[in-house]
């Protein structure tokens, strides 16, 4: 008796251990999130998307990053949307609009549209939203919160270019600006300008950003009561885990087959791929170029977005040698963009001739180009006073352990460019940093040479590309070109697209003659889906709403 008692806990320990092993080894007969939750073989109407992070806020007025936009676009709509598959503005909550003069816009609204809380969408609701954002102060008006209003309207209150909004009748609204701004209509396609239910905004204190100046706390609305007009209604959020939306039964537009949308948070790229392979998600974004072939071979469907980005090799003119235009031209001639694209960038990527993709207003077909020509590069270097005995020596900065839509694999891009530049006799001193440190180094200081960076456009606006890069003197580029700064400032205030078109075409030429850097490519961002996803509305500006997703099983 005693004998067994003494053995008891050894046995217990062994049981726990064996039990664990058995459970692990035992093939679970259950579905583990792979799909059919109904045995009848009907279509599973839940669409699970692998997101890289939580939405930063559920209030789109405070949205400025891709993951927040992704969720916001399902629940919210603005006056203006985009033409499917393009970056061009298209009617959404506004059926049409007119521009009687440079600073006045008259919108005719869709009728019989309701917010998720059952209240009416009308002209008053539109004005409420515009007035609300312009009235932001303090923390709410900071770069970390209402980023886009601040950038596009150039500030808040009296400082902004927004003058006011009047409801002419229930379904007509007039918005006036203080100065002409050609980018106004395309900018309205950003989720930040979504029209939200005034009743819900007030009920849940959307403007009550709590906490202190130093530590803003989201409003109750932004944490759990988003109320828009979109095809999906907010259901729940478990931060770090998932956001759940359900189909809006009273949606005014096309309903679609998806009845439930789940955004699963999976931060790691490899983990997202494995989640798709294991069947726990239906799709994910920003597939690593290295995974494309194996996913395709395994029967997953890959969907490409038209690239709306640019990857460039920046040159800091504050670094030794780079202020000489001959040196910059030599570097441009030394780069073989086609080799770079075929060797390390995703299929479908096109070479860049200027600092914006072709779809953007003001893209210039006849811009000065620097063909791949190693001999010309060497000749230019010789003219600039470099030789084998005295080679051009520069620092090459690039980030590691990061993947951006315009730069899926910086390490490989670097290696490829390194061999091209060394082939013409340039001596490189490679410096790597983790992403945040890298940004700090490039944007915050002068200690860098040539570097990799880029940009994904938010909406069709040339200023969003070249204005962002070259509108002001910066540490990144290290030059002072008053003529270029002036041209960009003037172009920003133009009233019509036609005026913009010619102004930015000239600016693009001006930039490429000056050659602050080498535009490399417009890499194709790819999404991967389970085979049951038969159609996905890919959009260059990620205006992808899941009522248009089609599922087969």
């Amino acid at each position: 008796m005693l004998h067994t008692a003494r053995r008891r806990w050894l046995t217990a320990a062994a049981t726990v251990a064996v039990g664990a092993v058995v459970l692990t080894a035992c093939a679970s007969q259950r579905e583990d999130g792979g799909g059919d939750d109904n045995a009848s073989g009907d279509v599973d109407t839940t669409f699970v998307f692998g997101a890289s992070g939580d939405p930063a806020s559920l209030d789109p007025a405070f949205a400025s990053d891709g993951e927040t936009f992704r969720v916001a676009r399902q629940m919210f709509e603005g006056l203006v949307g985009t033409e499917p598959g393009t970056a061009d503005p298209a009617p959404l909550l506004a059926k049409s609009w007119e521009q009687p003069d440079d600073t006045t816009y008259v919108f005719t609204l869709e009728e019989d549209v309701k917010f998720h809380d059952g209240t009416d969408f009308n002209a008053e609701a539109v004005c409420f939203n515009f007035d609300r954002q312009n009235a932001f102060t303090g923390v709410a008006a900071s770069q970390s919160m209402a980023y886009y209003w601040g950038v596009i309207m150039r500030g808040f209150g009296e400082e902004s270019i927004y003058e006011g909004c009047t409801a002419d009748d229930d379904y007509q609204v007039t918005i006036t600006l203080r100065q002409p701004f050609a980018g106004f209509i395309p900018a309205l396609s950003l989720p930040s300008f979504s029209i939200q239910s005034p009743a819900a905004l007030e009920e849940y204190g959307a403007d009550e950003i709590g906490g202190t100046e130093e530590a803003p706390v989201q409003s109750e609305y932004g944490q759990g009561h988003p109320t828009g007009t979109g095809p999906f209604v907010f259901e729940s959020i478990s931060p770090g885990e998932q956001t759940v939306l359900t189909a809006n039964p009273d949606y005014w537009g096309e309903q679609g087959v998806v009845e439930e949308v789940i955004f699963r948070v999976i931060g790691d790229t490899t983990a997202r791929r494995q989640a798709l392979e294991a069947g726990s998600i239906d799709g994910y974004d920003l597939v690593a170029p290295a995974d494309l072939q194996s996913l395709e071979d395994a029967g997953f469907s890959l969907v490409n977005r038209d690239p709306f980005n640019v990857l460039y090799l920046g040159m800091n003119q504050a670094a030794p040698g780079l202020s000489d235009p001959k040196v910059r031209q030599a570097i441009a001639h030394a780069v073989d963009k086609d080799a770079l694209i075929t060797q390390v960038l995703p299929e479908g990527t096109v070479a860049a001739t200027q600092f914006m993709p072709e779809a953007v207003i003001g893209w210039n077909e006849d811009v000065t180009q620097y063909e791949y020509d190693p001999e010309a590069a060497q000749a230019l270097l010789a003219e600039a006073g470099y030789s084998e005995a005295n080679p051009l020596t520069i620092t090459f900065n690039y980030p590691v352990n990061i993947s951006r839509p315009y730069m899926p694999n910086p390490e490989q891009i670097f290696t490829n460019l390194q061999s091209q530049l060394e082939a013409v006799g340039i001596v490189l001193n490679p410096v790597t940093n983790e992403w945040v440190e890298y940004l700090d180094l490039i944007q915050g200081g002068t200690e860098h040479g040539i570097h990799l960076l880029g940009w994904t456009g938010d909406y069709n606006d040339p200023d969003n590309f070249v204005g962002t890069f070259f509108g002001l003197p910066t540490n990144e580029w290290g030059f002072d070109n008053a003529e270029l700064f002036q041209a960009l400032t003037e172009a920003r205030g133009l009233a019509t697209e036609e005026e913009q078109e010619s102004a930015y075409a000239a600016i693009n030429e001006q930039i490429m003659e000056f050659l602050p850097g080498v535009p490399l490519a417009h890499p194709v961002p790819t999404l991967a889906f389970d085979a049951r996803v038969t159609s996905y509305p890919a959009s260059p500006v990620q205006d992808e709403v899941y009522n248009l997703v089609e599922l087969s099983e």
Partner: protein
Amino acid sequence: MLRTIGRRLLLLVPTLFGLTLLLFFWVRALPGGPAVALLGERATPERVAEINELYGFNEPLIAQYFTWLGQLLQGNFGVSIQTQRPVTEEFLRRFPATLELTFFAIILAVGLGITIGYWAARRQGKPADHFAVFASLIGITIPVFFLGVILKWIFAVQLGWLPSDGRQDPRLDATHYTNFYVFDGIITGEWDAAWDAFLHLVLPGIALATIPLAIITRITRASVLEVQNSDYVRTGMAKGISRGTIRGRFILRNSLLPVVTTIGLQFGLLLSGAILTESVFAYPGIGSFLSRAIFTRDYPVLQGFILFIAVIYALINLAVDVSYSFIDPRVRVQ
């Protein structure tokens, strides 16, 4: 006994104070900063300055430190810069997940480790023993993230036996009261949900348990070897005491003291091991949140979470010390 515990708790105060200093300056020594992380490609010096102004990061460091310390003393751990929710709330929301995973891993490591260690020691020098020693060496050296990816590839992707990520299939729409998902499933009678949550623990649990399992195996083996060759065991055998008594009361019980110490230490290590494991398995606990906070330079989260973990670690160590005295009366005298 109570006096000892009281003294240990008092000692915790200066320790934690020192830790706040270390933490604060380590976090601020990280290159870049929350503003740069928040703004990404738009991180121009002007915009960075504006955000630093907003959060008070442009104040002198000493002033910032004392502001933070003053808040801590009032129980205010600040607000996450990334999520704009209070740090305490973020911690409490995620801690049950990590605790559930850690418990699973520790049960696995202790149960298997003591069993294998004892079993190997009783077969000293035989192939089984050599195999156990070799396997534990592999267990200690294999990186968690590598093991995690491999485990997922085999059991989730290729075989489809186990889920690859997360805590529970969101389609189940399970009810949660305590945020311990397995337990929640049991108390609500949603057996599907409990089973699903348990299955989600298996792969990350194995990945997390590997290192402590290897260590506990080795310590148990060494300790059992030492005890079974000691004089009193030989005397006991000579006196003809039954084998079971010798194994249980003489050998195992006396071998356990160093093992218990190890278990306490391992528990703390598991909390840190959770950072990598949770990231690999997209497991929504404090680990994955902390690794994200490192990437986004979320100062308040980094400082607050690591402080919480330190307190938990200290309390576990205290509990281990107290448990000695129950296992080994000699400790009580000291």
